[in-house]
């Protein structure tokens, strides 16, 4: 098993690291640079967001925060690396929810939900359903009615299998009990292109894509309308109950010292409330949303349960 090999690797690194820092006294956290792992490649939404958060947080903590991208496996490789890092608060992760609440239901991951310290929730962006430019529909209800009358005729795209938009759409389809075929793409770029070219009928996307690509959004899956697109109604207004967002926060390996976690949670709250962070996220079409340690733990557990049930149905 390769995992055991990595454990010995970590042990070796640990031994070496310990022998080095042994001389230094245990001062108050943080006394050196913190590494923030982003489990997605450089340049994506998570990465840009993570870098913005690191920039703001390093000012609050008074230490450097170096962002490290560990891409691969729809976020699972980097997430695994966070789970098996030293729980000293010097390695934390900026993770969107999918690798935690979706991927473990799709295959074996070398981590479980108990392998993390839940520091805080930090960001979110509602999801929106966009229609092809020449679509005959003008409201969510029309889409649902047509799909009910013609099961399997319509297609919807998502940025990938097991992504949050995929799961959100399936959850919605579950709610209304209709069938729309899923066509996954590799990220928003190819997916949105296919939508704009009319190759698929609709596309479920993180809201930030709507103003960016001037998409023909028909509903936002949120409780309230978003200022950047005041004309787009919410799913609640349209008479449905599903809401969905792309969200995430800061996580660390399990058993992090309590005071370290509290320091990070506090810094996270200050970050979420800083105008600088709000502005950067605003440009990306997302919003800061602070959740306490317990609240984000609860949200992950609940998300995992809901999405686990959906994935069970969708995949098999």
């Amino acid at each position, binding site marked *: 098993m390769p995992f055991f090999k990595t454990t010995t690797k970590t042990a070796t690194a640990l031994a070496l690291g310990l022998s080095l*820092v042994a001389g230094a*006294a245990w001062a108050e956290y943080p006394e050196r640079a913190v590494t923030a792992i982003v489990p997605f490649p450089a340049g994506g939404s998570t990465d840009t967001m993570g870098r913005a958060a690191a920039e703001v947080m390093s000012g609050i903590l008074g230490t450097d925060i170096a962002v490290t991208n560990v891409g691969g496996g729809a976020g699972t490789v980097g997430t695994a690396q966070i789970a098996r890092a030293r729980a000293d608060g010097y390695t934390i992760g900026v993770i969107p929810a999918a690798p935690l609440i979706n991927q473990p239901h799709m295959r074996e991951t070398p981590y479980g939900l108990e392998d993390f310290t839940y520091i805080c929730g930090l960001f979110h962006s509602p999801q929106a359903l966009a229609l092809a430019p020449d679509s005959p529909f003008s409201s969510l209800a029309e889409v649902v009615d047509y799909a009910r009358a013609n099961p399997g005729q319509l297609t919807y795209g998502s940025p990938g299998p097991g992504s949050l938009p995929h799961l959100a759409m399936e959850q919605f389809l579950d709610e209304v009990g209709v069938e729309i075929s899923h066509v996954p793409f590799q990220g928003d770029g190819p997916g949105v292109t296919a939508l704009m070219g009319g190759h698929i009928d609709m596309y479920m996307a993180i809201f930030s894509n709507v103003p960016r690509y001037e998409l023909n959004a028909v509903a936002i899956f949120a409780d309230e309308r978003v200022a950047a697109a005041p004309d787009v109604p919410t799913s609640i207004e349209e008479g449905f109950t599903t809401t969905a967002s792309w969200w995430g926060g800061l996580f660390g390996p399990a058993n992090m010292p309590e005071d370290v976690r509290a320091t990070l949670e506090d810094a996270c709250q200050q970050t979420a409330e800083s105008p600088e962070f709000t502005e950067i996220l605003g440009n990306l079409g997302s919003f800061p949303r602070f959740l306490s340690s317990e609240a984000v733990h609860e949200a992950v557990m609940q998300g995992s349960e809901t999405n686990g049930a959906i994935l069970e149905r969708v995949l098999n």
Partner: protein
Amino acid sequence: MGAVQRDHESIIGGVAVLGLSALLYSQVMPGQFDGVALARNPMTVPRFLLALFALGGAYLLVRGLVSRAGTTWPAVAWRKVLAIAVLAAAYFWAFDPIGFIPATLVLLPLAFLSLGYRNPLVIAAVTLITAPLLWYVFAEGFSIRPPGFGMDDLLRALGGM
């Protein structure tokens, strides 16, 4: 060479391809995805490719067995290749857990020596300059921290003692 000329390149190539096919076959065997629609079956494409791959390997093998064209092998200094391959493997393995600087400090002199370079002064100078310099360029210039401890940790540890 022997009396019978053979196209050894094709024979070995064919056998290697067939061997690899057999190895991959264990991964695409019928199983959990049976009865899934073509477009939804993750195994459709790998199976198709593997079939072509194995067929091509068989063709190459037969072609090699039938052909009377001889093989002219390039002269390879196998001992050096083996030495550098083993060193590379050890270095890559140690890179993450041991750390960039110590692994490089060990690798470079060994690599130079095993390739027949014996000027001790140059070896020492190149080794001692390269490892910290690269670490600095990556950690500070590119803000990518190579694995293992770096000079900042070292200095802090020394200072803290």
